[in-house]
């Protein structure tokens, strides 16, 4: 009997030791994955540049092709040419090509652009490019629909929505935003989940003070049930006034003299 007990003990011990030893081997150390950093591909130019020339040229070339029989006055470049005249805004030929490439890239990946913009708060403007229409140089703000503007064949209202890289560099826009962030006292009594966007169009003087201001969506100010809109708009106007003179670039007045500020309280209130 003792012999069997002994054997049993021996076997049991061996099994236990084996398990104890092998288990750690079976346990693999968890992979130490580096945290995923979202990398934003922001195209920053070294200097403010206006590649209108490139765009306009492309658009008009296409249209030229479409209407071969008609003799188009090739004043297509007038807008661009004028821009070209501005001394420090002329992109050098090599730069021009670079711009072209960059722009083309953007165009091909509209979705990507959107994501990039959302991630970086500074890079908001989307460049929407509709090569099919001469009205390609269209103001595309968040609210305005492309349809209504497409209908507008006249180019009189050809306010161009420019991306940051076009009229203000990233750092310039940053500076302006930071300044206004500091001046804007958000009315705390605003309701959640409503449209809390106020767009204010400004005409600025060269020193950054405001010559004229206009609230777009003015009709909302007195709508019943939208009382908060008036309050929101007033707070935005107050912010602008307190912040004068605005931090505008020292040069290029023609480019930024019409400034539209889109105050959106939703992000702050959601958090």
């Amino acid at each position, binding site marked *: 009997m003792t012999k069997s007990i002994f054997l049993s003990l021996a076997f049991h011990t061996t099994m236990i030791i084996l398990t104890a030893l092998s288990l750690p081997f079976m346990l693999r150390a968890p992979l130490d994955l580096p945290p995923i950093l979202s990398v934003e591909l922001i195209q920053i130019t070294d200097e403010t540049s206006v590649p209108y020339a490139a765009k306009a040229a492309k658009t008009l070339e296409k249209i030229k092709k479409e209407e071969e029989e008609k003799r*188009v006055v090739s004043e297509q470049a007038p*807008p661009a040419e004028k821009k070209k005249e501005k001394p420090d805004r002329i992109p050098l030929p090599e730069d021009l090509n670079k711009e072209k490439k960059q722009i083309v890239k953007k165009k091909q990946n509209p979705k990507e652009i959107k994501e990039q913009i959302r991630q970086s*708060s500074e890079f908001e403007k989307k460049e929407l490019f509709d090569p099919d229409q001469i009205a390609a140089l269209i103001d595309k703000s968040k609210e305005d629909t492309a349809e209504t503007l497409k209908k507008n064949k006249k180019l009189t209202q*050809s306010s161009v929505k420019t991306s940051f890289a076009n*009229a*203000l560099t990233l750092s310039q826009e940053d500076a302006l935003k930071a300044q206004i962030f500091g001046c*804007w006292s958000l009315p705390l009594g605003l309701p959640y989940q409503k449209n809390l966007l106020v767009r204010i169009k400004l005409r600025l003087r060269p020193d950054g003070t405001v010559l004229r201001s206009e609230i777009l969506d003015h009709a909302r100010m007195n709508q019943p049930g939208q009382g908060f809109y008036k*309050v929101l708009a007033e707070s935005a106007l107050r912010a602008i006034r*307190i912040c004068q003179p605005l931090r505008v670039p020292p040069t290029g007045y023609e480019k930024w003299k019409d400034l539209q500020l889109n105050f959106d309280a939703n992000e702050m209130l959601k958090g």
Partner: protein
Amino acid sequence: MRKIILLIFYLFILINPAKALVEVDITRGNLDPLPIAVSPLYIESGSIDIKTEQEIIKNVGERISEVIEVNFKRSGLFNPLKKDSFVQKPDIAHVKPRFEDWRLIKAQALVTGKVKVSEDKLRVEFRLWDTVAAKEMIALAFSTTPKNWRRVAHIISDKVYQRLTGEKGYFDTRIIYVSETGLKTQRFKKLAIMDQDGANVKYLTLGNELVLTPRFSPKNQLVTYLSYFRNLPRVYLLDIETGVQEVVGDFPGMTFAPRFSPDGKKIIMSFAQDGNSDIYTMNLETRVVERITDHTSIDTSPSYSPDGKYICFNSDRSGLQQIYVMRSDGSNVKRITFGKGLYGTPVWSPRGDLIAFTKVHKGKFYIGVMRADGSGERLLTENFYQEAPSWSPNGRVLIFYRETKTDEKGEGFSAKLWSIDLTGYNERLIETETDGSDPSWSSLLSK
């Protein structure tokens, strides 16, 4: 012909060069309370002092501005600036404020006014200015008896609040609550009523019998509550003006948890008999009693939606306390809480969008809000013991009460009223002379 049109077309482009409109998105601001300057109201010559029971008031203009400042500060939305930095005198500021002076101290809004006190009349004029835009925003005048000077201050606060936030104010309101004193095992309870800022406390009962859960009628004249008069716990009606009390209905058992319907015509409450509690209503005019729930579970804490069409209530028919919503005739009962823990004291917001409640989970008590379908549950605050939220009339602020833990000797117990903003900010203790519990907010006194 076409060519010519096209020519004109392109010439147009030539003449109107593309304009650049730079757009910048402003998505952040600061959430600091709005800096506002409340200038003491200027007292017109010929005014006399105001005599009240407690005191003689010589400078009601200054007192009014102080009441307004306290209201603003307690709301958490405004930051009233210190008076010693004011440059302009009250009389001039009211007529022609020098906006640069006010902007210098960083005020974005300014309240000025003037007061005339005679024997039986108090006339108050006030103006709200936007110092940044340099324009007047409101100009109003009131006239009332001198002893109502506090209400004038509250009405001015409400007007300014509404103009600057877009929401109706809640300052010209009262709070009814249970004042508590004595040992935890033998609490002495009285009905008390006060202005929402704590002033003008009045006791409505003597404290000889236990009183609980008082609620205002929407007309503010009547109050309903539970009283243990003659050791029979029943729902009573009390007229604040006349002091007359009467039992609601003729029930052969305990009635409790009373509330008014939004039109003030009915009282809704629970009636307990033979171990079962159901919800009943009684029409105050016709005295007709209607049974709303008929279930062997405990159904209590009923609260009407502001349009009177629905009732939310507390029931343990699923085994534990949960919140249900039904039509006001008792049909279509739906459970709306499914989270972990117990849910109780549901109360419908005057805005109709949310239901506030008490939640108990793992030994902790929470005050929270959810949408009327039970979604979007948000817990605002956590404590050892707190319950029974009540809404301000603008559906923005919740008042509730907390009790403290006692120590090993069984001492250190206290009950206090607290308030919190819907966003979870501005949690604030409400000072009361004695301990307090079961607070309920009135609707606006001025309609």
